[in-house]
């Protein structure tokens, strides 16, 4: 097992910069998830760690050794591909033992390793089959097995679950986490699925346009997003955003005057000045449906546009002065579409973003946390 350090890594294809100076330290044994929309450079970064792409500038080291010039085969890492990339002309057992055979591992040792891993992954009965004769889920397991038998310095995963159906994906998510517990291997996991990121990561690395937006534990990223991008990308249903101007009263209380004139009180934001253009960010679960106009925090009237029952909860889509707002509630709604309700924002939980820089302006009482912007 090993740590991975990436310092100021840049990747360009010709004149196009795909990664703009990535800095990231991955601890030994950590499970890191790179998350971001398609095309943001996650795979490129992962492939640079693997040695499948040249590093334009900067350095990557694995276990303290700079690997920039090392071939993939000399980096001692294993990778699970989105397509699984199983060798079609080899049996499951041969697929899994290929790397060990190349390393001239003793026959009995290989057999032991394969038997052991096949048992862990439930592949024992399939060892003689060709990949062609396996289901998607089974192929995925073989790809995992091929990585595990090698006991590499680090595991790299490139969207390994995106070809599975939802139920299987959920199951494999848990299994991969359990495997990581058991093996304790440094892992870098790429996904565009923020739920995978939230549920699996020790630390999430949120990326956008070849730049790391924020690094932090899932809860940190969810509760204290560094900017509008991270806030909108992480969390489903997504955070609501409303534009307005920052206001401070004589007594020190603060709030945001929305474009329609309504006023939402917020905790005083660090660095915000009066009349500054700000964006209010509120997760659907941080907006309450007030019983009446005199509800908590006063209520802002909003028209109900759609009611989406989701079993456990209900998602209520409302229109607030023309802006769509989603509200998450555990109550069964007793109002109809097109009626007016009053909604109230949870002052402690909502966020203030600088509209221009898109950075979050944290409440004055929040401790200075480690945040990457």
């Amino acid at each position, binding site marked *: 097992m090993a740590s991975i350090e990436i310092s100021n890594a840049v990747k360009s294809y010709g004149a196009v910069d795909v990664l703009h100076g990535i800095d990231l330290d991955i601890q030994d044994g950590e499970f890191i998830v790179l998350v971001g929309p398609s095309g943001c450079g996650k795979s490129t970064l992962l492939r640079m760690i693997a040695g499948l792409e040249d590093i334009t500038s900067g350095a990557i080291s694995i276990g303290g050794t700079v690997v920039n010039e090392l071939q*993939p*085969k000399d980096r001692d890492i*294993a990778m699970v*591909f989105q397509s699984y*990339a199983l060798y079609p*002309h080899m049996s499951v057992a041969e697929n899994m033992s*290929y790397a060990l055979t*190349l*390393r001239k591992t003793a026959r009995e040792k290989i057999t032991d390793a394969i038997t052991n891993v096949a048992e862990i992954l439930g592949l024992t009965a399939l060892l003689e089959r060709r990949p062609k004769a396996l289901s998607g889920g089974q192929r995925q397991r073989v790809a995992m097995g*091929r990585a595990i038998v090698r006991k590499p310095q680090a595991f790299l995963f490139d969207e390994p679950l995106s070809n599975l159906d939802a139920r299987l994906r959920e199951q494999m998510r848990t299994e991969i986490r359990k495997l990581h517990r058991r093996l304790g291997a440094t892992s870098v996991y790429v996904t565009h699925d923020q739920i995978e990121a939230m549920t699996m990561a020790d630390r999430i690395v949120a990326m956008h346009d070849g730049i790391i937006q924020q690094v932090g534990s899932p809860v940190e990223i969810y509760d204290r997003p560094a900017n509008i991008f991270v806030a909108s990308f992480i969390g489903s249903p997504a955070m609501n955003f409303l534009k307005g101007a920052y206001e401070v009263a004589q007594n020190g209380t603060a709030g945001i005057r929305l474009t329609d004139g309504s006023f939402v009180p917020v905790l005083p934001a660090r660095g915000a000045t009066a009349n500054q253009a700000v964006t209010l960010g509120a997760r659907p679960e941080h907006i309450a449906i007030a019983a009446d106009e005199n509800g908590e925090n006063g209520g802002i009237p909003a028209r109900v546009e759609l009611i989406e029952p989701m079993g456990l909860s209900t998602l209520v889509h409302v229109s607030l002065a023309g802006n769509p707002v989603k509200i998450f509630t555990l109550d069964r709604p007793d109002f109809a579409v097109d009626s007016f309700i009053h909604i109230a924002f949870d002052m402690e939980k909502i966020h203030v973003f600088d509209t221009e820089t898109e950075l979050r302006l944290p409440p004055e009482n929040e401790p200075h946390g480690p945040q990457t912007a």
Partner: protein
Amino acid sequence: MNVSGNSPARKLVYWGSHYLMIGAFVVFALFPLYWLLKVSVTPNDILYTEGVRMWPSRTTWENYFFVLTQSNFPHYFLNSVIVAGTTAIVTTMVAAVTGYSFSRFAFRGKVIIVALMLITQMFPLVMLIAPIFKILAPLGLTDSLTGLIIVYTAFNVPFATFLMQSFFDGIPKDLEEAAMIDGNTRFQAFRRIILPLTLPGVAATLGFVFTAAWSELLFALMLVSSESASTFPVGLLSFVSKFSVDFGQMMAAGVLALIPACAFFLLIQRYLVQGLTAGAVKG
């Protein structure tokens, strides 16, 4: 649309017409071969006297006997095997490596090389005979099998390369990347993972180049003047004399010339069929 899922009568009509068309095509394609065989076993004395018949009243092996024992044909035949075999193997090896690099790498000048290779395919060969003769003569490569092999290889490499490239394009990059991470160099990954998966493509390319070189007449005729370096298509012409054509012997030689091509395809058909049916690479 699932045609075969309908009523039995419609199914019958569908498959009936299906096989009828295939049958008609096969008859059309194979009839000349049948005629070749028929004439080759027809005795000379009744070739012109019996009129047009589907099968002669008497058959004989004497044409074959003559061709094999009294003519230079076995020698031409051997020359052709050497030329076509070597050309097929060398061309396929070059095409495999070039096709792989076209399929997998972006490099400076790639577009220019591809364009040049396409351009070579546009000229009528007749135009090139004189310059090629001029080039080969001082090198002592006219009137030699080596010269023919070089020319055939040069002419077949572009097309064979594009053919191989398309086979490599069908194999996901992930496979050799996985192999490289598993401990192969790129070349090892090519040899141990990619090439075995491209065997159908290799077989198809070998077959294509072999038949092209086997039946090439123009260069074989123009670049070679001596008996000793003649290939069999040239040899076939020797059955045409100034005053007559010995059809029986010519046809017998023709039938014999089919044998290596057939044998070759029998040898590689396993891979060709695999290539058509497997689709094992993806999914």
